[in-house]
């Protein structure tokens, strides 16, 4: 039976960006808010010790049913699709981007500048850190500028990571604690972390995930939440370019149309599904899709690549206490002659974790002999006299315009809609510098190894982008961007796009906190119009 959903604000998508917009608009206004999510509502917090146990013992998905069978974006980062989005699986890492990330064209002559600066975003970074609860350690101010302190002190440095920091800093490269959305003290109704070390399935709620925000808003009666509801088209009004409605269906009754009406629509469906919906909405006065007069919807999909190494170090470590804990250095994200020694564009972070690579029990020794009885235990003991660490650098990649999400007409979901694919394409500058960049990061790994002692166990280089974003990038020029500096679509006054799709570049750090901050900035402007 056809039905209608009406609200002042309709948010399409149910991940962390949606949660930030919903919470901020609910606090600032009396507007009615509806959240529409295609995936399931998995509000199972009370069962998470059990799901964690089964994850550990059997490797089962701790969020059963957090996907839509047959509904995928080729080359996307994950199949996760549920209320809470990928931030349910998230490890909780919350670094900010660096000031340089917002001014690549001005500072380095590559890529594009954002229409906003780091300083413009700083108060929203701070607000995001307060809302989700971030524990962190102030790094050197020249590499880690902040206008305010972290909401919470860092979690105590684990024994292993304390040794790793001493070891790594013999190289002269400063390291500090990677900030995390894990409570070092009770925060906003969630308890203090007890280092269960399975942060992708936090059984205590000490790590933030968006389901907490949605449950809180639901309990307060401030939102309605429509899960299993798939929006397949945005429809502009006949007498203006404003969006008049969204056409949707419930996955349990796909033949019954749902009409969604709102004063404002917020698209918060991530870097893949936001562009997908805009392109799917092509027709009439908008033959290339909604918000796409510039032809850049789905374009400039961005991300960074990694170089990852496991190293053996001359110290006894005890892996297994808090492997999620990590060190961060933004030393080489900075603009200076040591970071870019050859005048070429190279910027990357550095991270270090404890590891058990090469230090696990095994069935055969180096000569292929089976290890039964005491032999396996003796072999294990011999190998753990030294420890292992994991080192990784994310390096910035400038996306080409051709780095794009497109619709595949011949690949359809179970409801007959074309599915998207992403093809990551480097800008020529990044393509040319790829080998140089990876060699330089490896050289810096070896510098640390030489200073601290140890050997490289293995090193690998990413093929595709991690932490993708873009597809609806922000800009001041409507001919070259999809949304303005506040996330409002250039072409539709009541359509807002929040978070990951709007970024211009991915910098060198996990983008989740940046997506949250951008969403809050969008919400602050939207709330002013309600």
């Amino acid at each position, binding site marked *: 039976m056809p039905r209608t959903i009406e609200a002042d604000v309709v948010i399409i998508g149910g991940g962390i960006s949606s949660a930030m917009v919903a919470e901020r608009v609910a606090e600032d206004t009396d507007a009615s808010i509806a959240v529409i999510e295609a995936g399931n509502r998995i509000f199972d917090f009370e069962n998470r010790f059990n799901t964690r146990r089964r994850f550990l013992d059997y490797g089962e998905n701790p969020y059963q049913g957090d996907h839509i069978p047959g509904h995928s974006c080729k080359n996307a980062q994950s*199949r996760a699709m549920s209320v809470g989005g990928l931030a349910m699986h998230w490890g909780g890492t919350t670094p900010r981007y660096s000031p340089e990330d917002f001014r690549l064209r001005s500072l380095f002559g590559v890529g594009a500048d954002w229409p906003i600066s780091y300083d413009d975003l700083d108060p929203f970074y701070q607000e995001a850190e307060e809302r989700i609860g971030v524990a962190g350690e102030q790094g050197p101010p020249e590499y880690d500028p902040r206008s305010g302190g972290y909401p919470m002190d860092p979690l*105590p440095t684990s024994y292993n990571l304390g040794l790793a920091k001493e070891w790594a800093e013999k190289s002269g490269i400063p390291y500090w604690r990677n900030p995390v959305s894990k409570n070092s003290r009770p925060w906003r109704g969630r308890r203090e972390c007890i280092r269960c070390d399975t942060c*992708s399935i936090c059984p205590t709620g000490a790590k933030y995930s968006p389901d907490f925000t949605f449950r809180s808003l639901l309990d307060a009666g401030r939102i309605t939440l429509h899960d299993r509801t798939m929006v397949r088209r945005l429809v502009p009004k006949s007498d203006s370019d404003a969006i008049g409605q969204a056409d949707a269906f419930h996955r349990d009754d796909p033949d019954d149309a749902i009409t969604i009406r709102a004063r404002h629509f917020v698209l918060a469906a991530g870097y893949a599904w936001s562009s997908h919906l805009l392109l799917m909405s092509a027709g009439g006065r908008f033959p290339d899709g909604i918000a796409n007069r510039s032809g850049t919807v789905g374009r400039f999909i961005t991300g960074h690549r990694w170089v990852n190494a496991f190293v053996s170090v001359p110290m006894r470590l005890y892996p297994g206490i808090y492997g999620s804990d990590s060190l961060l250095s933004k030393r080489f994200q900075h603009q200076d002659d040591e970071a870019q020694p050859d005048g070429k564009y190279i910027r990357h972070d550095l991270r270090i974790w404890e590891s058990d690579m090469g230090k696990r029990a095994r069935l055969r020794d180096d000569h292929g002999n089976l290890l039964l009885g005491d032999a396996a235990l003796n072999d294990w003991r011999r190998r753990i006299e030294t420890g292992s660490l994991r080192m990784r650098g994310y390096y910035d990649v400038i996306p080409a315009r051709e780095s794009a999400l497109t619709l595949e007409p011949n690949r359809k979901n179970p409801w007959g809609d074309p599915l998207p694919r992403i093809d990551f394409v480097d800008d020529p500058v990044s393509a040319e510098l790829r080998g140089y960049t990876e060699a330089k990061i490896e050289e810096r790994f070896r510098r640390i190894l030489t200073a601290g002692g140890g050997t490289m166990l293995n090193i690998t280089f990413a093929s595709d982008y991690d932490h993708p974003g873009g597809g609806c990038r922000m800009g001041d020029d409507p001919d070259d961007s999809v949304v303005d500096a506040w996330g409002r679509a250039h072409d539709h006054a009541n359509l807002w796009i929040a978070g990951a799709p709007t970024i211009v570049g991915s910098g060198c750090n996990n983008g989740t906190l940046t997506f949250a901050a951008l969403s809050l900035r969008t919400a602050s402007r939207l709330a002013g119009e309600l």
Partner: protein
Amino acid sequence: MEGENRSTRRKFLKTSGAAVAAVAAPTGAAAKAGQESQSQSLSLDLPLLHAFAEAVLPEEIGADGVRDALRDFVTWMNGFEPVAELPHPYLSSVEVQYGPPHPAPRWASQLQALDLLAQKEHGAGLAELPVGKRRDLIAADLERHDAGESFPRPAHAGHVATGLLARFYSRPRAADLAYGARINARACRDLASGAVMPPPLATNGAQG
């Protein structure tokens, strides 16, 4: 030595029933899966499994350690859910993956085959052989199964020896034994305690 082994097996026979019964009662779908898998793990010949475990697990854990390891292994098998939904691989858009079928039938037949082989080659069942001879038989069988260097996840183990050892060495207490320290991996703990070196085990081989 033989006498000690027989005594150990008799002791295990008395306790193995309790070990199976001690499995926590799950609910819903897990309960159904658990009931099905329990009958499958019970199809393993437990005395034979015990004789087998004595030959592949470290001797230094002693009879109590073997009993504890087998109790855990049986509990693990009883809780196994065949073809369970697996986590989405990161940086991949492939369709959702599912786990393997229950390994118990495969492992049970391997145990029986080893027992038959022992009778044909040595005129006595596996449990009646000295530990060294048992280990030689098992090692030869493992070589035929192309066992690799690393342990797989237990349910993916092609051979019952690999499954038992993979489970044993994945447990936090195995790491504690190797490191001689009370690391207690995977245990939730207060923030401060993770910042200091783990204390040594009270006694060598302590399994508490």
